[in-house]
């Protein structure tokens, strides 16, 4: 648990996510990455703010839009890139792709590409922590669309019933693919629903890293005192299409929202708060790390036919 917001680290992680995904965009048309990619550009502040508040013993559940969560957790970037390339040194030895990242050492659980489907798993993990009287909090990232699924509410009910140590991080970018929240539910804030299911919830507007950090730190502090679930509804904006690298076909109002978000890019704000030297060093570090990761991916082999049947059963 961390109480002090480390701007330098925040900037570094934020930049590492942003530049990694920009690199994906740059490379995508080469067809080297034959994997559906769900970019987080615009939403990075959540992953960074949340991750900075966590400890090693905390557990991360994410989803198909997982690059930011993975990188912010300081999970293995080389392996992530190798996985995007379908190479055998990838996080799933090339068999999972972008939608199924994982890093055992970082307690970053393999992600699911079926919406809301890992939410009960996260709750089950939190149950196990309590069962084993083990330290740690589970963090479960999910989208606003995920709350449309019944299993989401079943999961919250169980988490509150058993007072489990879990924070649901709802990344509310207002869209499920092209479907705006208003077309999916009637003006009922997710936080209100979560409260009715016994989960303390707050909505965090503004898409600022520090705010997400503070809220998460606060939850962790409270969980350490008394095991219980929280939900943070993190308002954000996705700048790119749901999947792939293109710009979404949206209405004018929606475009303006994105433009607005770009003008309030927290990456820029964080940068402003750092000495120029630090910024330079961090930028260099990020560039090198990404270059190395891409080299790692490029130089790795594809898995052999003999691996086809590996890891189906224990």
């Amino acid at each position, binding site marked *: 648990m961390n109480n002090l917001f480390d701007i330098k680290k925040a900037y570094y992680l934020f930049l590492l996510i942003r530049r990694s995904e920009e690199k994906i965009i740059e490379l995508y048309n080469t067809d080297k990455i034959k994997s559906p990619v769900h970019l987080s550009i615009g939403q990075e502040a959540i992953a960074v703010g949340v991750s900075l508040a966590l400890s090693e013993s905390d557990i991360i559940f994410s989803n198909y839009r997982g690059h930011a969560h993975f990188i912010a957790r300081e999970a293995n970037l080389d392996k992530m890139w190798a996985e995007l390339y379908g190479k055998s040194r990838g996080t799933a030895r*090339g068999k*999972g792709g972008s939608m199924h990242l994982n890093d055992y050492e970082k307690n970053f659980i393999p992600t699911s590409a*079926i919406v809301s489907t890992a939410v009960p798993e996260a709750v089950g993990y939190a149950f196990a922590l309590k069962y084993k009287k083990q330290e740690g909090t589970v963090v479960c990232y999910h989208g606003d669309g995920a709350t449309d699924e019944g299993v989401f509410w079943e999961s919250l009910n169980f988490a509150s019933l058993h007072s489990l140590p879990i924070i649901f991080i709802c990344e509310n970018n207002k869209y499920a*693919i*092209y*479907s705006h929240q208003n077309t*999916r539910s009637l003006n009922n804030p997710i936080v209100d629903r979560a409260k009715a299911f016994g989960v303390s919830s707050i909505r965090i507007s503004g898409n600022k890293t520090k705010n997400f950090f503070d809220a998460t730190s606060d939850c962790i502090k409270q969980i350490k005192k008394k095991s219980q679930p929280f939900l943070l509804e993190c308002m954000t904006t996705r700048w790119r299409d749901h999947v792939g690298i293109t710009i979404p076909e949206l209405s004018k109002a929606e475009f303006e929202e994105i433009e607005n978000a770009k003008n309030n890019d927290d990456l820029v704000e964080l940068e402003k708060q750092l000495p120029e030297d630090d910024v330079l060093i961090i930028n260099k570090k990020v560039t090198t790390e990404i270059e190395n990761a891409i080299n790692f991916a490029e130089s790795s082999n*594809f*898995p052999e036919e003999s691996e*086809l049947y590996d890891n189906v059963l224990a």
Partner: protein
Amino acid sequence: MDKILDKKVINYGEAIYEAITQEMARDENIFVYGLGVDDPKGHYGTTKDLHKKYGKLRSFDTPLSEDAMTGIGIGAALAGLRPIYVHQRMDFLLLCMNQIVNMASKIRYISSGEHSVPLVIRAAIGRSWGQGAQHSQALQSFFMHIPGLKVIAPTTPHDVKGGLIASIRDNNPVIFIEHRMLYKNAGYVPSDTYEIKFGKGRVLREGNDITIVGVSHSVEDSLRAADLLKGVGVNAEVIDPISLSPIDNEIIRDSVNKTKKLLVVDNGWMKCGFSAEIIADVATNCESILCQRLGFPETPCPTTPSLEKHFYPNPQNIAKKANEMCGGDSEWNPPEVVQHEIVSFKGPF
């Protein structure tokens, strides 16, 4: 897009669109719903702008609530509407199994025929561009297993149009299986409406040496394999059952009684799968038939292209297996065949 000519060449996706729009124009009880049906892509164009043409009540997006949305379709069908529920991937039907199996397939039975459930559930099988473990499953056998459901998996633009119209007009719940590697395939399609019959298969190519039965996309590869086999003097008969439940066992039995050899090319896992059923029917009803099957290996689908190519049966290994069954040279290595729909496919999904 609605100009009616006598016939024309359109693709599989367009044929689906045509079936839907023509049927919606005919019967105002038909509506189309599902995630993204009214989005700019309109599910490979198959539902594009239907909401503009027929209004938002008759073509609408839904919350991600597959379980309830299936029940809602069933309830609307009980009230006399004819819903078409569209899924981007067949894998998502796993969220709907309770409604499909416990409800849709049984309501007619428990109401002694007073109610029926004219619901069409469209679902696309995914493949390519790293679909992987959770976006590539072909679960037809689940639905074939359940009495009270009809299941159909057309392969050609002609059959997909006629099959969808038949499904919409049918008074039973129908699982309508599409394949995303087929949407761009073109073919001759009558401009008028027409139905193809449930329970009727089609011999796509005649031959005396071996019977090859495919399903959905594997029919395409079976035809390519037949071309390869021709090159080594083997005449394969290729059968597309189209309708999986009811299934045209007769057309297969007749063929194998002639060829004495059956190779089923599954488009899914084999255990308790489509291929198991076809072979079991032949084994219990015909005499002395040499039977073999090909299908997905017993593993989830890998995303990396280097392994995905070993996951799916392909024209070469179909041809090789068939040739062996016909006593051909087991060392034969058929030439590479381009699966244009697969190599030309670019993501991002």
